[in-house]
């Protein structure tokens, strides 16, 4: 219990420490991008910290009707932003401020989805489809902006919630098999190995009845078989290329591949201790694209070396572990809510750093608390505050 009580302070401490390191990095970047960047970021920092403290003191109730209203409001916002006549419809401009809507609606959607997952007690296939539908709505709307990276969060959240939920193993397996079937469809050998082993497991498992076996068999085979067909016959050449470059950016000579290479050059040329604060040459020459947002991590790594970058990763690990521990110690709605917050930061950590390290496709997701981005920072500060507010209930 003492451990849990320490969480309150530690969560705040780690989150603020990461943000301060982020400020240092933005300051360094702003020297070649303009000071406005730094001034804006530092004001978001204070706003975020303030909100985070404020929200940590309130008590959120499980109010079903409110959650519907908030979800509806969030969906309307997402639709509203799509109606604008622009190519990229991510921003909502309110007088001088511009909100990144996909981030801004996160508290409402997490609140609503936590409620849904908590309240839904039936645990069959149909219930999972029903829940998936509510993840799909924001996913599709954000995807249309178009922002695949941010949209992916809602699907990722579905996976985490599903794993965490009380659904039966067969329901969880249905999604797990579909996911891996799709993943392995790019490689025939992997797909064959996967499908043979999982089919054997399903067919000779006494726990599953015939219906289950049929469902699971379809989950193993259908996505893996249909996707290559769609890929080769339905999609156009440029669409195929886009997917391939997305999955393997090093093949893309001009776009993401070049960016990743530059990120690596920045990181790799730093050594153990780095080039020193404000001495990074790569970002100051604009070789490092988006050094303030997507490539904030390589930019930091260039100046602070392996020591600095591994320390930053360790801080994220601490933050995420504490959020996860908190979630697992909570019950019901609050447990899902904190898990949603955890998932949002974890998703950003995973895709941003994984992307710049070349382990995952580049999605354009900023590194929460570290990258530049007002909406993202303030919203996640609020989410941290709300998560911390649940600690009281443990006493």
């Amino acid at each position, binding site marked *: 219990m003492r451990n849990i009580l320490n969480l309150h302070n530690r969560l705040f401490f780690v989150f603020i420490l990461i943000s301060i390191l982020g400020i240092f990095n933005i300051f360094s970047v702003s020297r070649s991008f303009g000071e406005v960047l730094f001034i804006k970021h530092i004001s978001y920092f204070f706003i975020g910290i303030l909100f985070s403290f404020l929200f940590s003191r309130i008590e959120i109730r499980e109010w079903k009707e409110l959650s519907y209203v908030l979800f509806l409001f969030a969906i309307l916002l997402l639709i509203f932003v799509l109606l604008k006549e622009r190519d990229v419809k991510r921003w909502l401009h309110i007088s001088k401020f511009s909100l990144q809507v996909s981030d801004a609606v996160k508290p409402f959607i997490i609140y609503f989805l936590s409620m849904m997952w908590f309240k839904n007690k039936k645990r069959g296939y149909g219930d999972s489809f029903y829940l998936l539908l509510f993840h799909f709505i924001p996913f599709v709307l954000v995807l249309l902006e178009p922002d695949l990276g941010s949209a992916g969060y809602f699907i990722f959240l579905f996976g985490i919630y599903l794993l965490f939920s*009380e659904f039966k193993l067969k329901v969880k397996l249905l999604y797990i098999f579909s996911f891996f079937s799709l993943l392995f469809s790019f490689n025939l050998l992997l797909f064959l190995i996967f499908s043979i082993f999982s089919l054997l497991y399903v067919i000779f498992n006494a726990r599953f009845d015939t219906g289950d076996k049929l469902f699971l068999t379809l989950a193993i085979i259908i996505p893996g078989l249909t996707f290559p067909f769609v890929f080769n016959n339905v999609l156009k050449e440029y669409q195929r290329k886009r997917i391939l470059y997305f999955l393997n950016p090093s093949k893309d000579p001009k776009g993401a591949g070049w960016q990743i290479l530059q990120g690596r*050059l920045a990181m790799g040329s*730093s050594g153990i201790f780095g080039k020193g604060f404000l001495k990074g040459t790569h970002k100051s020459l604009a070789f490092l694209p988006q050094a303030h947002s997507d490539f904030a991590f390589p930019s930091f790594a260039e100046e602070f070396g392996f020591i600095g970058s591994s320390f930053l*990763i*360790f801080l994220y690990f601490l933050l995420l*572990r504490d959020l996860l521990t908190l979630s697992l110690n909570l019950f019901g709605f609050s447990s899902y809510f904190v898990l949603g917050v955890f998932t949002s930061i974890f998703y950003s950590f995973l895709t941003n750093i994984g992307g710049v390290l070349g*382990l995952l496709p580049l999605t354009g997701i900023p590194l929460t608390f570290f990258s530049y981005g007002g909406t993202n920072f303030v919203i996640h500060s609020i989410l941290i505050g709300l998560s911390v507010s649940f600690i009281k209930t443990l006493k």
Partner: protein
Amino acid sequence: MEKIFEIKILKFFLYFVTVLFLFKIFEIQILKGEFYEEKAIEVKSKKIRLPSKRGRIFDRSKKAIAYWRTGFRLLREGKVFLEDVSLEEIVSYLENPDSSKIFSVYAFPYRFYPYKNIYAQTIGFTGLPSEKEIKEGIDPLLRIGKSGIEKFYDEILRGKDGYKFLLMDAKGRVYSNETRPLIEPVDGEEIYLTLDFELGKFIDSLFKPYKKGACVVFKPGTGEVLALYSKPSFDLNLLTGKREKEELLKVLNDTLKPLLNRTTQGLYPPGSIFKVITSLIALEEGLIDTNEFLFCQGKYRFGDRVFKDWKEEGHGRVNFFRGVEVSCDVYFYEVSKRIGLKKFLEYFEKLKIFDKTGIDLPDEKSGFYPTIKFYETRYGRYGYGEGNALNLGIGQGEILMTPIEIALLFGAIALDGKCKRPCLLENKETDYFELPFKRENIGILKRALFKVVQGEEGTARLAGVRGLAIGGKTGTAQNPGERDHAQFASFFPFEHPEYVLYLIVEESGMGGEIAAPLAGKIMKWIYEKYIKSS
């Protein structure tokens, strides 16, 4: 909490991702650090060449006769693609974004020669280094001397290009930081020559009616060379830049051989000028008495052969002085007979007059003189004899000399046996050239040479300059099938000789009629510019 397994999976996932990231950054930042470090510098720093300037060349009046003008050089993948391109060409090569990656342009100081074709072979031209020279370590983008002074003094004139290392940002904009300090270009050194280009211009105007010829003016006391004129010539500027390859081919294929520096590479039979050597040998060996008279009827019998004088009706009574003055062949046949072939050939070995003078120019030719071995291979063991000596004595044998060799010979005569070797670089100390003859014998010869110009019957009367005493000798070298080469060699002022002049007009006629008047005008020019005032 009964979902222990799922919680474990989720926790494992977080730990796994963290450890994976740490491994990956360890790999990138530590294991492959050096690799990326080098690559990062490659991407950002750009080496920019700062071309050096080739040293200027000045003439004796301190006027620059080779300097530079700015042109644009087109590189293709770092190698010279086109020299001296126009703006239109630059645009046509660089406007296409694909080709602009391969091609690049920079301002380059090309050589400029304000006197164009004057002394062109002597000054020489520059060009890109050959494959072999590049292998020897010469910067492939540097233009080096290919001939003449440009080649001989290339190491002095040649500069060393510098480099600027710029940090370029991703958009190719120059960033102020510098990764490495700049390497300053080192310009080549300037050199000062003893040549007088105004004199060259004047000689060129005199040569206008003639196609081929050469002229040397040099100061035997110091070795300074005032003129090394060779005709036909070419415009050095045409061999520099834009169309240099085509122009060079044109000049190379020209049957008149403009690239040949006739003053140091042209081999001519000296004709009657060689009688000065015959005279000196005879005087040195005591074979003639200067007061001894011969009677010249225009021909000389030797065994069953008849040797003709250039003047059919003959010169009448001739002693040594008159023999030289009127260039009487019959007199010199007799002298040559007395010397004999053996002695001639001995003297040719001993006199260094056929050797290279050592002038500071590349590819100087040495003269040619016959040896016993040469005669035997050429005419067979019994195919030659004393008759050859007679021809040698009047300079019509197998002897060949370059104009600079004849000028040096006259320099030594002018200064009573010893003079400085010729040199184009100002203030360069050269060795002495010596003739193995007694001072008084040379003095006797000089008196005779005085009469050649000043004497009533002198063959070089037309070379006379009012107020200037001149010693000289004409020469008419027979040129089978063509008109003779008219030649004249002289030194002046006679009392205290300062200048030596040698002049040849190829395929023109008699030395006294063609060469002497031209030389007279040149001597007058020099007299008025240099001698009269001092």
